[in-house]
């Protein structure tokens, strides 16, 4: 059995040895993240069955629970860690051929740091440690957005930095208030003590923490930075930011709301915010003429859908939300990789310039079509079961309130379908009927896109492959008494 701490230690250690490996061989340097993330993927996948039986609690430093910093590798944590390393691995393979300009060694250092931060957020059991990993994730994303150092990237990065660091300060203020009130930073210990107090006493720190984490999670009023940052970053980084980073931010919100505070009335607010986010995201995406901005706005919409699923707060709803998180990570990574390759060859992000590209780049266009169909929620792709689970869970609540919200969410899905089909129409059915030479995609682009297409179809046809795991993950998120007793060793 692998110690969960290694999932953090190995990428963190290799992140800073990458610049040294550059002096040995440039090929080896580009290969390092692939090997590191392969290790992480295998290790976290091996941990999943054990974590489902009982969460693995690692107390660092050998102190007992309320005094130590601990890692809690529960079902949610290990599944998300596996997802992070899977997407990270495929994007690292893609970077092999994609990232050639600029300071490449720094790219790989920051790339590994983003993924370390994300893995840390899902595995930690301590709120200050959560803040530290959150900052690792944020600071490396600020720098990677400005990686090429061109006009739009620097501007987007500054916007992202200002909003992100105000958010982080709010998060830290919330943590400080909680520490002043309860004298502990451990999530389980906090949850245990908060159970005994009135909800009014913890309202201010909760709102501060949700606001702080919400900036990264891109929930509605806090997402002004996202379209610029995701569209200006190099496409491989957009895939990580869109697929992983914002989803992990939303996971952190869910962990804080469900496990630490257990605040039931806030769930309905989360569902409403989710619905508004879906509508705003999809409506803004509809009017874009820049393909990467369109995908960025569509990410906002998808985050809203996940927040809506989590806000239903039943076992089915949370399962649906987590399923949608996984489906969004796979589909959006595929879309950004395909679009990145198209932009690389065409040299423009305007949708008009992509006319008839399916003849020139059949594989990238196919990948785009699969990703788009999956996001819209057509069977047999992975987006269909995700949306189906969320809608079914909302209808099972049998409340007028949720019925109205579902109506809005479905409307937004129709809008989403409209703009994705428009692009597919541009790709396949417009442009001159001249004979163009087909371009063979490089192997480093073929492998990750091919694997993502296969995964999207397999999980879409057999959603049961992962829903069993997600059921226990949802149970872990919702059942805080169980979490407390496992982590504190009371059982």
């Amino acid at each position: 059995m692998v110690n969960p701490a290694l999932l953090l230690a190995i990428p963190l250690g290799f992140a800073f040895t990458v610049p040294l490996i550059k002096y040995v061989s440039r090929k080896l340097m580009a290969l390092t993240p692939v090997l590191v993330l392969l290790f992480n993927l295998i290790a976290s996948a091996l941990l999943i069955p054990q974590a489902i039986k009982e969460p693995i609690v690692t107390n660092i430093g050998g102190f007992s629970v309320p005094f130590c910093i601990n890692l809690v590798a529960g079902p949610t944590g290990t599944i998300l860690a596996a997802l992070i390393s899977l997407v990270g691995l495929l994007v690292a393979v893609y970077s092999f051929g994609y990232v050639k300009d600029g300071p490449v060694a720094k790219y790989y250092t920051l790339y590994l740091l983003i993924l370390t931060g994300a893995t840390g957020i899902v595995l930690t059991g301590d709120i200050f440690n959560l803040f530290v990993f959150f900052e690792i994730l944020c600071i490396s994303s600020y720098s990677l957005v400005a990686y090429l150092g061109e006009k739009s990237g620097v501007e987007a990065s500054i916007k992202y930095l200002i909003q992100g660091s105000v958010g982080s300060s709010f998060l830290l203020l919330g943590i400080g208030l909680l520490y002043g009130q309860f004298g502990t930073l451990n999530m389980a210990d906090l949850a245990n003590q908060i159970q005994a107090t009135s909800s009014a006493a913890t309202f201010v720190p909760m709102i501060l923490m949700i606001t702080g984490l919400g900036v990264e999670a891109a929930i509605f009023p806090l997402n002004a930075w996202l379209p610029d940052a995701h569209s200006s970053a190099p496409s491989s980084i957009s895939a990580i930011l869109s697929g992983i980073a914002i989803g992990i931010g939303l996971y952190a919100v869910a962990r804080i709301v469900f496990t630490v505070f257990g605040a039931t009335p806030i769930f309905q607010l989360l569902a409403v915010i989710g619905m508004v986010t879906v509508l705003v995201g999809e409506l803004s995406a509809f009017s874009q003429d820049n393909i990467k901005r369109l995908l960025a706005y569509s990410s906002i919409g998808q985050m809203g859908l996940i927040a809506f699923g989590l806000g239903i707060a039943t076992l089915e709803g949370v399962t649906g939300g987590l399923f949608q998180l996984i489906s969004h990570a796979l589909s959006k990574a595929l879309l950004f990789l395909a679009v990145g390759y198209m932009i690389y060859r065409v040299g423009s992000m305007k949708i008009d310039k992509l006319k008839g590209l399916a003849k020139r780049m059949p594989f990238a266009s196919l990948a785009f079509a699969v990703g788009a169909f999956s996001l819209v929620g057509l069977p047999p792709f992975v987006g269909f079961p995700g949306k189906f689970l969320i809608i079914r869970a909302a209808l099972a609540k049998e409340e007028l309130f949720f019925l109205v919200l579902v109506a809005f969410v479905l409307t937004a899905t129709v809008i989403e379908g409209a703009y994705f089909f428009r692009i597919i129409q541009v790709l396949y059915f417009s442009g001159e009927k001249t004979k163009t030479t087909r371009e063979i995609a490089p192997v480093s682009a073929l492998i990750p896109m091919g694997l993502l297409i296969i995964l999207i179809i397999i999980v879409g046809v057999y959603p049961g492959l992962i829903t069993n795991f997600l059921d226990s993950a949802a149970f872990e998120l919702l059942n805080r008494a169980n979490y407390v007793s496992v982590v504190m060793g009371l059982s």
Partner: protein
Amino acid sequence: MNFLSSYIYYIGAFGLIFIGLFIILVKHNLIKIIIGLNLLDTGVNLFLISVGYLHQGTAPIFGKGSQVTPASMVDPVPQALVLTAIVIGASILALALSLGIRLYDHYGTLDLTEVRGQKW
């Protein structure tokens, strides 16, 4: 007067936080906004320190024999937290300033209302 002396640190911390937020929201110059971010950060750090502060308290290593009682110790945890938070704040500051230099190279101004390469 008694109220002021017992809560002076909290008043100072939240004063700094609000001044920082005000600067970030109102000013247009990037350097001023970065100063605002730093004030906000400092305010949060001061707040964290004052959570664990004890007037005339001491650290465990300075106690001699029987003088070591838990009630006379300053809580060390917030100090460790602030040490981490200061490091993070300093790195964000450095990154923001270096991005500011790049922004000036591209646009010839630090006024964010004139930087309109993308939709705000």
